[in-house]
Every structure is written in C-alpha cells, then in structure tokens.
C-alpha cells in the first residue's frame, strides 16, 4: 500500500501534470494562434511603424497607446525547455510563446489606437520582462491619423 502511495507521489502526479500540460497547452496554443490570425486580419487597417518621426501625411490622434499581455508556459513545454538546456540550441517552445505574446500585445495596441480613431501607430517599442514564472510583453507607441 505504501509502495503504491509512493509510486503515485513520485511518478503518477508529475506524469499526469505533464500529460495535462501537453494536451491543454496544445489546445491553448492552437486556439490562441487562431484568435491572433483573426484579430490581425480584423485590425489590418491600422498601420504600424517603428519610425520615430510621425509621417508628414499624419496628424496626432490622442495619447500614447499601450498593449500588454502576461503569458505562461505549459508544464510539458517547460520540462522540454529544461531538457533543452542540457544540450543547448534554440528552445522552440519559448520562441512560439514569445511570438504569441508579442503579436497579442501588438493586437491590443492596435485596438487601443483604433478606439481613439487612429489608423497608424508610430515609434512602436517592445519591452519584455519575466514576472515570476510568466512573461510580460508590452508594446507602446504614438497613434496618429492619415490626413485625407
């Protein structure tokens, strides 16, 4: 009986967490990518620039806008990333996580600009920070509107 208990504690719980992480993480990622693609298409009319100067054809349209997202890795990929650190190389699991976070932050930035009636955002900056086990990505920029 105590053997069974020990087995459950030592193996079954971590393994089931990995399995849950694998399944839920996969579903979450696929859904998120689907949502990202849909939102990107919906907000395609808001142009984004990394130039510092506001284009000549544009007028100001309100205050600095922000888009932020805090995202967490699933247990399976976190373990996978841990293994990767033994051999070195690219950690794909985190590359896609950051890609999702950055695109989501950009979508929120565009949505904020759109809500102010702007159709461009210039001087976009990104900042990425680790918060506990999660990662935060912020995008910010200055909205402006094309002069007809």
């Amino acid at each position, binding site marked *: 009986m105590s053997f069974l208990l020990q087995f459950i504690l030592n193996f079954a719980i971590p393994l089931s*967490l990995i399995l*849950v*992480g694998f399944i*839920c*993480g996969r579903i*979450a*990622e696929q859904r*998120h990518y689907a949502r990202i693609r849909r939102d990107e298409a919906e907000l395609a009319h808001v142009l984004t620039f990394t130039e*510092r*100067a*506001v284009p000549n054809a*544009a*007028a*100001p349209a309100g*205050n*600095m806008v*922000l888009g*932020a*997202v*805090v*995202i*967490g*890795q*699933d*247990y399976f*990929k*976190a373990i996978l990333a841990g293994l990767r650190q033994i051999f070195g190389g690219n950690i794909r699991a985190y590359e896609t996580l950051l890609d999702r976070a950055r695109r*989501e932050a950009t979508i929120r930035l565009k949505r904020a600009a759109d809500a102010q009636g702007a159709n461009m955002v*210039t*001087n976009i*900056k990104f*900042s990425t*920070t*680790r*918060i*506990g*086990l*999660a990662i*935060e990505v*912020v995008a*910010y*920029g*200055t909205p*402006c509107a094309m002069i007809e």
Partner: protein
Amino acid sequence: MLTITNTEQVPGFEVAEHLGMVQGSTVRAKHVGRDIMAGLKNIVGGELRGYTELMEDARGEAIRRMQSQAAALGADAVVNVRLATSTITQGAAELLAYGTAVKLKPLAGD
C-alpha cells in the same frame, strides 16, 4: 489631461520650452488568490489575465504619477516617454514611466 507621446515631438506643435525629465513609478505586489490561479496556468499554459490586469493597472498608475509631476511643472505635454518594468523581489514588480516635460506652441504657417 496632459498629452503624452513616445515620439520627440507632438505632431502639429513645436516645443517652446523644456521643463526637464519627469517620472512616475509604482511597485506592485500580486496577491495570493492570483498566485494560485497563476500556478494553475503554468500547468495548462496561456494568458494570465489576472496578471495582465494587475500590470495594466499599475502601469496606468505610474503614467498618471508622471503626468501629475509634469502638470505641477506647468507642462503641456510629456514627450519621448519610455516604459520599464523590473522584478524587484520575489512577487513584486516595479513599473516606471519617464519622459521629458515640455511646453508646446502650435506650429506657425499654413
């Protein structure tokens, strides 16, 4: 409400006077309830909405503090605003917003 931009100039205006750098910051801790949810999210993956809201809230507060500092100097706008976030201790983050307070005048010409 003060204008804030992260570009050097405010479109349609020129800088009449520089009033120096202004900043605003907040140090925010997360609470236990959110921590438990975050722990769960770290198994299944995905967005931690509680944290997103928390950070947005704290960042808004930092920006407002920066704006009130600029307003106290009699500024019209804060230009070249930058944001920075850093983890100070376990479970607390500092959010900093800083920029240059300026007085504006409308661009002459057409």
